[in-house]
């Protein structure tokens, strides 16, 4: 980034927003150069805005000087989407964290992008409502980040993804204009659904400054099951058969052998014996939950379940789900030399292909001599193969790179997606064409039309000319 332009932009932003909202001291910039991914991108300026007007003013200045703008929420993304790859301005939106309206009669909520997912749900719970997508990082991630990445999580099988809840957006466009798109109506056939264009756009088309979300009543009852199987194939078959009955579980998770071993060893949590485990949750009214649970148990038994644990008691459900929750921390402490890294960690395939996909990923792991812990939301076909590698060893990165490429081919082979719920970011930019083929060019044209100066999060999605191993944070610092 040209120093003189940055300096001019800095001074102009200060003039509009005041000294306290703009920083460019090296340590602050350093702290803003990471998200939760394996990447690092160094911004030139960081701005903390508190209104759409302020965002608009900053974007106008950036557009004038053709300086990149990288919108940032809580920085919990796993793909590098909030890393300023090519410098420029990081827009910290976390001070914009108000709940502007809760409308129970019409079942929607209006929020600013910086509100934390769990904080929103805590407030909604007092009305008996919730915003369901439940990303794994729900206690830390911002709703703005969820919209920008179309995030979801364990409940997606029943409740869908963030996109299914976005009614309306306010967006600051790359020229600084503020638009609103969408409506409070639960359906619309009035022209292109522009709001859907912004959902999952990862900050490449504008800055989301206000979000209107559909909300749902909290379910009254729930149940949880932990079911073990001899192998992932049998677990996958059972999952598929459960869905065929018409039951839609609130969550259906699969843990493969490495995951089970990690949780047992690190967190000392015992699971029923077996080499694959399904966590299945149902919710709704009590009769419905009871009936669904009985049917699920029957299907599991018919499909060679080894052991079945079941409860409808809240405290017991929490205890049972602790094993699933403990997975991520367990993988960090599985081996002192190894760190989980986020490469090809979020593929989606049709549900019936899940056992094949898991076996093929495990074969890749064995061929490359890598530990890959495979788990995921089997109910919607979303797998999270988590590679554990020595991040200080270049040779291991090469093997991880090869493994990731092969995993993406598996997604392609089964007609799936390279990104189920974590977005594309840096890590998948080079593979986007694998999924979209020629239609990627349409996306590129949209981007050019809306952002002719290519200031909004440049490099992500289309113009990333490097590889998934460039911009790794480990090469530059201890982290």
């Amino acid at each position, binding site marked *: 980034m040209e120093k003189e332009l940055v300096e001019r932009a800095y001074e102009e932003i200060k003039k509009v927003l005041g000294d306290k909202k703009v920083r460019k001291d090296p*340590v*602050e910039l*350093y702290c803003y150069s*990471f998200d939760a*991914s394996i990447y690092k991108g160094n911004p030139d300026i960081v701005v903390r805005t508190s209104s759409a007007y302020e965002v608009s003013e900053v974007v106008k200045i950036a557009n004038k000087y053709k300086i990149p703008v990288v919108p940032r929420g809580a920085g919990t993304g796993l793909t590098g989407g909030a890393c300023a790859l090519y410098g420029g301005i990081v827009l910290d939106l976390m001070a914009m964290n108000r709940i502007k309206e809760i409308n129970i009669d019409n079942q929607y909520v209006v929020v600013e992008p910086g509100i934390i997912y769990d904080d929103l749900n805590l407030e909604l719970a007092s009305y008996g409502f919730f915003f369901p997508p439940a990303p794994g990082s729900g206690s830390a991630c911002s709703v703005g980040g969820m919209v920008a990445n179309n995030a979801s999580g364990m409940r997606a099988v029943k409740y869908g993804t963030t996109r299914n809840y976005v009614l309306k957006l306010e967006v600051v466009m790359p020229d600084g204009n503020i638009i609103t798109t969408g409506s409070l109506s639960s359906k619309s056939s009035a022209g292109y659904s522009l709001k859907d264009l912004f959902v999952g756009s990862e900050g490449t088309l504008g800055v989301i400054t206000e979000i209107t979300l559909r909300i749902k009543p909290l379910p009254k009852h729930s149940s949880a099951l932990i079911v073990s199987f001899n192998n992932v194939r049998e677990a996958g078959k059972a999952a598929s058969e459960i869905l065929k009955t018409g039951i839609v579980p609130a969550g259906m998770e699969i843990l493969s052998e490495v995951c089970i071993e990690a949780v047992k060893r690190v967190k000392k949590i015992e699971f029923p014996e077996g080499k694959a485990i399904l966590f299945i949750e149902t919710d709704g009214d009590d009769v419905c939950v009871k009936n669904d649970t009985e049917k699920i148990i029957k299907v599991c038994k018919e499909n060679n379940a080894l052991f079945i644990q079941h409860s409808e008691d809240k405290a017991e459900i929490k205890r049972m789900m602790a094993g699933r929750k403990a997975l991520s921390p367990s993988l960090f*402490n599985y081996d002192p030399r190894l760190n989980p890294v986020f490469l090809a960690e979020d593929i989606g395939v049709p549900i019936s292909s899940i056992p094949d996909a898991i076996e093929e990923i495990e074969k890749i792991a064995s061929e490359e001599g890598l530990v890959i812990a495979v788990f995921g939301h089997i109910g919607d076909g979303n797998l999270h193969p988590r590679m554990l590698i020595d991040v200080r060893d270049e040779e291991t990165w090469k093997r991880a790179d090869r493994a990731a490429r092969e995993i993406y081919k598996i997604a392609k082979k089964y007609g799936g997606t390279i990104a189920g719920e974590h977005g594309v970011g840096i890590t998948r930019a080079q593979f986007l064409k694998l999924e979209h083929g020629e239609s990627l060019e349409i996306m590129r044209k949209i981007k050019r039309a809306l952002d002719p100066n290519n200031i909004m999060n440049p490099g992500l999605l289309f113009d990333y000319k490097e590889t998934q191993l460039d911009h790794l944070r480990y090469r530059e*610092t201890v982290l």
Partner: protein
Amino acid sequence: MIDYRDRIIKCALCGECNTQCIVLREIGWLSSGPKGKILMSGLALEGKLEKDLDNLYLCTTCAKCEPVCNVGLEIVDIIEHARRKLVEAGITKLPHEKMANNIFNYGNPYGEKEKIRLDSKLVEKESAEYVFFPGCTAKYRVNEIMLSSIDIFNKIGLDYVVFDENYCCGSPLFRTGFAGGFEERAGLLVEKLNKKGDKVITACPGCYRTMKNDYSKKYDLELDIQHISVFLNEKLDGIDLSLEKNMTATYHDPCHLGRHMNVYEEPRSLLKKVKNLELVEMTNNRENALCCGSGGGVRAAFDELAYQIGKKRLEEAKETNAESIISSCPFCKLMFDTLKENGLNAYDVTEVIAKSMR
């Protein structure tokens, strides 16, 4: 030797820690939160940008970030280690430096030159079953805590002696990065205390944490030490405790007693023995308790920030409709006293107990 690089590299950068940080909530910029401080600790270890790493001192060491860490990192220990690196490089805060000099020169962080004046019978005993180590703040700044403690000991006829020497445990040094060169003094202190008696009681969570944990982990020194709230909870079982007037109070968990030493129930159990005292809980209690703002050298170096944090805690206390806030730490008491215009009476647990023994 701990390799802090091996620890820091494990950080998931997930940001869960940031959701808990009271300092980040006040300031907003990432360098003021725990994730930023872990990143900055990495820089400190590598000797990069040292002169700009001042914000590493913006941490009260309250440890609220640790229980939510996805990796189980001891975040406060990492930050304290980074502070040691900064001190080695000469990057310090003036108030911390002054405090450290006072400890090394006068045996207390406040630079008090005179010993506290106590009845000679309390201090001249060669040895006793218990040694009372009040802690510098309870001696020189909030001495009602020391006096109340002595009052209680006398009333129950305890065989004890007060350690009245100007001899700091070193807690402020450990928290602010100045503990280099303290090992010999710590050893000498343990020797002196053990000469006076086998069991040590302290009224200060900072001293308790330091002498129990830091001494053993860092210096391999063992000391039989208890916090006074734990000691009294056991000792006063069956004794009639009653306040003259009814009081509704909320108990504030001091960070260095609660999250650092896992002491949550004993002070509550002790206070529940007191008739005419009604205890009500704040929303954030026990392991979720919010810091008072005093710890980690923050009050010394960034007093305005410390007061802002303290006010938030008092606002939460007021929501309970309690008329008083009771803590079991001289630093918390000092903070709540300073902010008393916010409308709550502040007491230490020892004061309440002393008052209730008639």
